[in-house]
């Protein structure tokens, strides 16, 4: 079972992968918009290309987070779907990390959507 199939061996890095994707997405969105709008010579010009880029990049990031979410859900179910995970064995530790990854992936997915929303509504550099 554990460690024998094509499963990921969870650790602290896999745990923080979803919020790291959020951070990456956030920085890219911010930098792309900031560079487009600086120096702000034409505040009323539409920034369509920037917004399309943010949409596309957002979808890529959401897909990546969704894959992590799916991966951890599948493995977590395979390990018995526990939410308490306080037993003293490596499977409980693995299940704990998987469940925590599921939660963080959910939060990160939502946060990426949040971050992208301004680009859906704001059309220029004002």
């Amino acid at each position, binding site marked *: 079972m554990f460690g024998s199939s094509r499963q990921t061996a969870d650790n602290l890095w896999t745990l923080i992968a979803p919020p790291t994707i959020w951070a990456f997405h956030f920085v890219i969105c911010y930098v792309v*918009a900031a560079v487009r709008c600086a120096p702000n010579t034409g505040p009323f010009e539409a920034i369509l290309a920037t917004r399309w880029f943010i949409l596309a990049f957002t979808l890529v990031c959401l897909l990546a987070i969704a894959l992590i979410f799916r991966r951890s859900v599948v493995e977590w179910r395979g390990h018995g779907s526990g939410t308490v*995970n306080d037993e003293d064995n490596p499977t*409980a530790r693995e299940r704990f990390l998987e*469940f*925590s990854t599921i939660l963080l992936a959910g*939060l990160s997915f939502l946060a990426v959507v949040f971050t992208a929303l301004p680009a859906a509504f704001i059309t220029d550099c004002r």
Partner: protein
Amino acid sequence: MSNAQIEAARVGTFDLSDPATPNYPDPPPIQTIGASHVDQEDPAVREAQAKRLIWVWEAPKGWKYWSAVNNTEVGVWYTSTAFIFMLFAGVLGLMVRVQLAVPDNDFLTANFYNQVYTLHGTVMMFLFAVPIFEAMAIILLPEMLGARDLPFPRLSAFGYWCFLIGGVFVCGSIFFSSAPASGWFMYPPLTTQERFTPGYGADIWLLGLSFIEVASIAAAVELIVGSLKCRPPGMRLNMMPLYTWYVLVVAGMILFAFPPLIAGDILFEMERLFNWPFFDPERGGDPMLWQHLFWIFGHPEVYIVFLPAIALLAMIVPTFARRPIVGYSWIVLAAVGTGFLSFGLWVHHMFATGLPAISLGFFSAASEAVAIPTGVQIFVFLATLLVGRVIFSVPMLFVSGALAIFVIGGLTGVMVALAPFDWQAHDTYFVVGHLHYVLIGGMLFPIVAGLYYWWPILAGRTLSDRLGKIAFWMMFVGFNVGFFPMHFSGMMGMPRRVWTYPAGLGLDLPNLVSTIGAFVFAAGFLVVVADILRPRGHLPLAKRNHWNAGTLEWLSEPEDKGWGVRSIPIITSRYPIWDQPNFIDDVDNGRFYLPDAEELKRETIVTSVLDAKPLQVLRVPGPTFMTMWAAGFLGAVFIFATFHWWYLTIAAMVLATGAILTWVWRGTAVIPEKHEKDVGRGLSLPLYVSGPQAVGWWAMFITMVGDGTAFLSLVFGYFFYVTIHAEFPPPGIEGPGLFWPLAALAVFALAWGLAFAARSLNKAGSVTSARLAMAAGGLAALLAGAFVLLGPHTTGLDPVTHVYPATVWILAIWAAVHAAVGALMLFYCLARSLFGHLTPLYDADIQNVALYWHFMLGTAFVTVATIAFTPLAT
């Protein structure tokens, strides 16, 4: 003598000059039989073990007490110093309230008022809120992990002395009426130009606090390695006390939040001292860069303050609900999620600066999103209390007060996270009300709860229930009376930081009420202080595990023994004292690991990250004055620089380097007298580990991540200038050229290769070739540093004329200084090898230095790519 002979000579000798053996009189007899082979049930054996452990872990006596480095001593100094600074800043806060109690007041002059509120904010944030986290973690973390000490006790002591010196320097300035007077975030150009802010105020703020940031980063290194590598055997990641999760997250945040401020401080001080125009728009600079760098630090800092305090609640709530926490994973989600999201909020302090709406939108969205994980932990606490059987007590009183106040602060936070609302409330007392609700509810109340809760561990006796209740109600009522009206005075338009206001604007009553409330609150806090200070010698000792808690810190005995734990336990539960049968008895009778200090050395166990499998017996150094000297000389560097005494600054720099080298030479990577040690229960562990398994390697890695963040903040500054200028470099100014930067990069690569070769050759046993590589690598590093400076020098870039040459110079200087440090490290390894402290088998020094050089090569590459190729690209 060959290396093999030196190593052979060491084995079996007993060496009192080892830093892990304290230099105390009357050592008890050593034990030559391993812990697995003694009869642990024999009281005479146990007594001899206890005698050795006590002798080894005792604090020094007399005036030498101040050379202590053990976490209990340093933690207590750290905590009390932070509280003293807090009381000082509290008095400043009351002075502000007296001044504002009535309209047109002249209790303070306008200038002195500016100093008072600036210092109030600065001291509360930098000298209380952040250090108290480090202080409490230094005390509590090893206790919760059943460790004898943190992995780098001397680093903790060094951090404490830095904090004390820097803090006294910053606080003392107000007695000479030369304290900083421009608000705790020091916005330029008000603060960078002498004509607006004459005197030393801004310099004292910058240099004093930069120095303290060193202490914070030192603590972050200590706490990350402590929580990942010094857990007791069996404490897997899913068993860690929640406090440890928070400490890990917060220490990680410090690593990414403080360096941008250090980078900002460097730019700021270069402008104030040498007129380099980083924030001067007339010469291409931009004050906005400071705001960015300050708040990239400043907003995560709020969570750096808040999360450790919430961590205290996560330990207190289960104890009084009499059950394990509900939703352990959800707390981990909250801690990690908040840690990340808090880095996407910084511009919400800059909503009124005229940034494009789309930028504001991103930060507004993240500011709303962070409410989700923050709310999750509140619901986890409520759920735990609902399903448990709650025992009411003074700590719980403060916990409930904290939650009530913090929720109000959180809700006003969601309000000001919306840009349109913020434009109305920005820079008014509404924000003052909001931030005090967040910080006092989210940080001060939990800390007082923690004081009442953990006091039996610290002092062996309990604090008074009666005084605690009186203090709570005075603080809770006083706080709300004091700070709630500020929301109204703010919405009526009262700006922050005003010295006084005219009568008849409707501000008279709310301000008077605020002042009365603030004094009631302060009186309540004084009750806590009185309770702590009152003599308690005649009272009986508290019983062990006073609150019947389940976590390891409650193993501590009312009569402090200094050793941390009698033996290092094997953990199979989140709440071992509740769940593991016969647990306390087994620990006390030394039936677990390391029940003895056979060779009279301070030792603790290092384990693996995921499952806490035992890996090593780590010998930790004992008392020394060297850390105090190092902190003193480093402090002198910053203080002399404040007053522009350059020769003294350079002299102090040399002395500080010498002190640090002496400390490292004597205290680290000591070759043990044998390879392995019997730790009991039939387990033998190595005494010396190098490379990625070693705590020293981790410390280097973590330090360099922080260092890299500071460097990237400077690079961010460079590209910030690129984006705001239509042409960068500006027309008519030549870049540093291609030749010298590329030559520098080539020599840097050579030095990196030599450092790497030195490591491999040494490991392979070719000691002479390794020494040659170290010497050549050190020389190459010096040459590379010189080359990188020659670029801007030969093309005549003058940093005073425009921000472009100034940023090029700052990046080049950064790389050159790091090259010099890299050279020093290689020469240090050479000396260690020549003196027999670095051998093919015991090679921690060169392993760590090779790691440094990986980061160094990255720094060199980014520097050259930025300064040499960006001009070409544009």
